[in-house]
C-alpha cells in the first residue's frame, strides 16, 4: 500500500509525503499498522537510518512486526495500542539529543498525537517527518464538549463523549493533534444529512 494521496483542501489539513532518510543520526521511529511498510521502504532507500534507531510499532491488525524487527534497529518494541506505548514514546522524546530525527508512519490518529507530543517536548518541527499509510480514519475533537473521538471514518459521526452528531471539518490543530467536529444539526435539531465514508 503506497503513501496516501490527499485531495486538495485548506491549509491546516495535514498532507504527508514519503519519509526521507536523515542518515545514521539518532532516530525515534513510531509506526502503526501499515505504517511499518513506510519504514521498510525507507530502509530500502537507505539502510543506515536504522543504525541508531529506536523503533516502536503498534501492529493494529497487521502482521508486519517480524519484517520490521528484522531491519535490525538497536531497539525494537511492539505495543498493543498507542496508549500502551505512550510512556515509552515520551521517555524517548525526553531523552532525545540535538540532531535526533523523529519518523512517524501510519494512521492520522497516531501521527497527529505523536506530533503534538513531540512539539510539546521541544523537538524542532524540522526534525519531525510523517508519512501516512493505512486507514484514513481521523482523530476528531468535539468543539462543544472538547472530547476526542478516535478513528472516525464517517461524516457525520456521533461524538463518543457528549453524543452530539458532528460533521468532520478539515480544520486541524497541531497542538491537539486533531481535526474539528461541529454539530451538524445545530440549526435544525434532528435533521441530519446521510452518513458518508470520509475521503482522504
Amino acid at each position, binding site marked *: 500500500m503506497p503513501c496516501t494521496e490527499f485531495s486538495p483542501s*485548506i*491549509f*491546516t*489539513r495535514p498532507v504527508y509525503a514519503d519519509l526521507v532518510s536523515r542518515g545514521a543520526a539518532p532516530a525515534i521511529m513510531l509506526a502503526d499498522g501499515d505504517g511499518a511498510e513506510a519504514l521498510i521502504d525507507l530502509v530500502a532507500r537507505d539502510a543506515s537510518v536504522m543504525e541508531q534507531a529506536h523503533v516502536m510499532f503498534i501492529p493494529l491488525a497487521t502482521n508486519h512486526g517480524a519484517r520490521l524487527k528484522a531491519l535490525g534497529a538497536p531497539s525494537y518494541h511492539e505495543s498493543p495500542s498507542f496508549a500502551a506505548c505512550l510512556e515509552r514514546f515520551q521517555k524517548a522524546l525526553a531523552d532525545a539529543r540535538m540532531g535526533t530525527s523523529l519518523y512517524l508512519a501510519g494512521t492520522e490518529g497516531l501521527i497527529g498525537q505523536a506530533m503534538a507530543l513531540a512539539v510539546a517536548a521541544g523537538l524542532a518541527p524540522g526534525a519531525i517527518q510523517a508519512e501516512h499509510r493505512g486507514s484514513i480514519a481521523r482523530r476528531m*475533537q468535539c*468543539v*462543544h464538549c*472538547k472530547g476526542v473521538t478516535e478513528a472516525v471514518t464517517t461524516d457525520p459521526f456521533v461524538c463518543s463523549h457528549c453524543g*452530539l452528531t458532528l460533521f468532520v*471539518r478539515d*480544520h486541524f*490543530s*497541531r*497542538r*491537539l493533534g486533531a481535526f*474539528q467536529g*461541529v*454539530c451538524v444539526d*445545530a*440549526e*435544525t*435539531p434532528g435533521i441530519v444529512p446521510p452518513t458518508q465514508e470520509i475521503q482522504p
Partner: protein
Amino acid sequence: MTMQFNDETFRDDYTYRNSPEAIRRFPFPFDQDSYMYSVNLEPHAGGREGTPFNKRFDVDEHYVSEMRDRAITLADDPLRCQSLPHMELAGWDFLELVMDSKAEDYPDLFSLTKDGDRWHWVNRPLGIEQRFTFLDPTTLPCGPLEYITRQTQGDHALLDQREGNLWMDAGMVTSQADWSLDFDVGMNFFEWHAPVPKAHEMGIFQRALKFLLALPLSKPSRRLNWTLTVNPRLDTSPENYHKWGPEKRTVTPENVGAKQHLRVELQTLWRLPRSNAIAFPIRGYLASMEDLTTLPKWGRRLHRVLRDLPDELADYKGFTVNRPMIVDYLSKFDDGVPTSAGIYPDETGL
C-alpha cells in the same frame, strides 16, 4: 458630558438596543456598493470626532453590559481565555497599553496613578479599584490579559512573533464570529486563517503578514471586518453553536428588520514594547437592519452589498439560508439612487 451606560442583555431576552447616537456613530464597513476581501489596513491614528475610530480603545454605551456578558460566558467556559506560558509578558504589555490609553482618553471614567511599579487603577463604570505591582502577577486577582480584557470591550488575541510568522499564543475570546480560541491557540497566521475562502488565493494573507511583521511601535493599524448575526448575541462561538444555531432559523419577513444584525469588527493591531508581540483587539459593534436603514445611504448600500455578495462569502459568513429574506427586506430601502463615496452617512454631519 458623562457617558450613560445601558442596562441590557445579549442572550435570552435580548434587551440590547442602540440609542440614535449609537446608530449615528456605527462603524458602517462598506465604503462602496460592493464588497470583496482586500488588505484593508490603515493607520489607527484617530478619526472623526465621535466615531469609534477617534479613540485608541473605544468605550460606548454598551460597555458595562458587554463586560457582564463576558463574565457569564467565562464562568461557563474558562477556556475562552488562554495564555501559553511565554505570553505573560505580552499580557502585561497589553494591560499597560489599555490602562494608559483609557486613562488619557477617558479621564472621567478611568484613572491610573503610577508610583514606580506600584500602580493604582480606577475603573469607575465597573466600580473597580485596584492597587498592584506592575509585572508582579501575585498582585492581581488573575493573569494580566484576563484582568484587563474583563474590562475592555471586544475580543483580544496576542500574537507572538517568531520564525517569520505570528502565533496566536494567547487570547480572550467570548464574542467571536464562530471560531474557537481553544482550537486555534498555538496556530500561526496561515493556519488560523485556513478556513477563510478566496483570500489565500488572492494573496491577501501573504501581504497582510508581511505588513504585520514590520509593524512599528506606536504606529497601530486598523481594519474593519463584518458578518451577520441573528439577534444581538455576543457569544456566537462554535462551542455553543448547538445552543444558538436554532435561533438562526427564527427569522421571518415580519421580524427580519429587528432580528437580523450587522456585526462589525473594528480590528486594531499594536506592537507591544517589551515582548515584541502584537495585540489584536477585535472590537464588535451590532446594529439591526431597522437601525441601519434609518440612514438612507446605509439602507441603499447594504441592500446592494448583500444582494451582490459572492455566494462563497455568504456561505462562510453563515447567512445563506436567510439571505433572500434579508435582501428582500432591504430592497424596500433602495430607490436606486447613487450613493456617495466613503462609509459615513450623508445626514449626520459626522
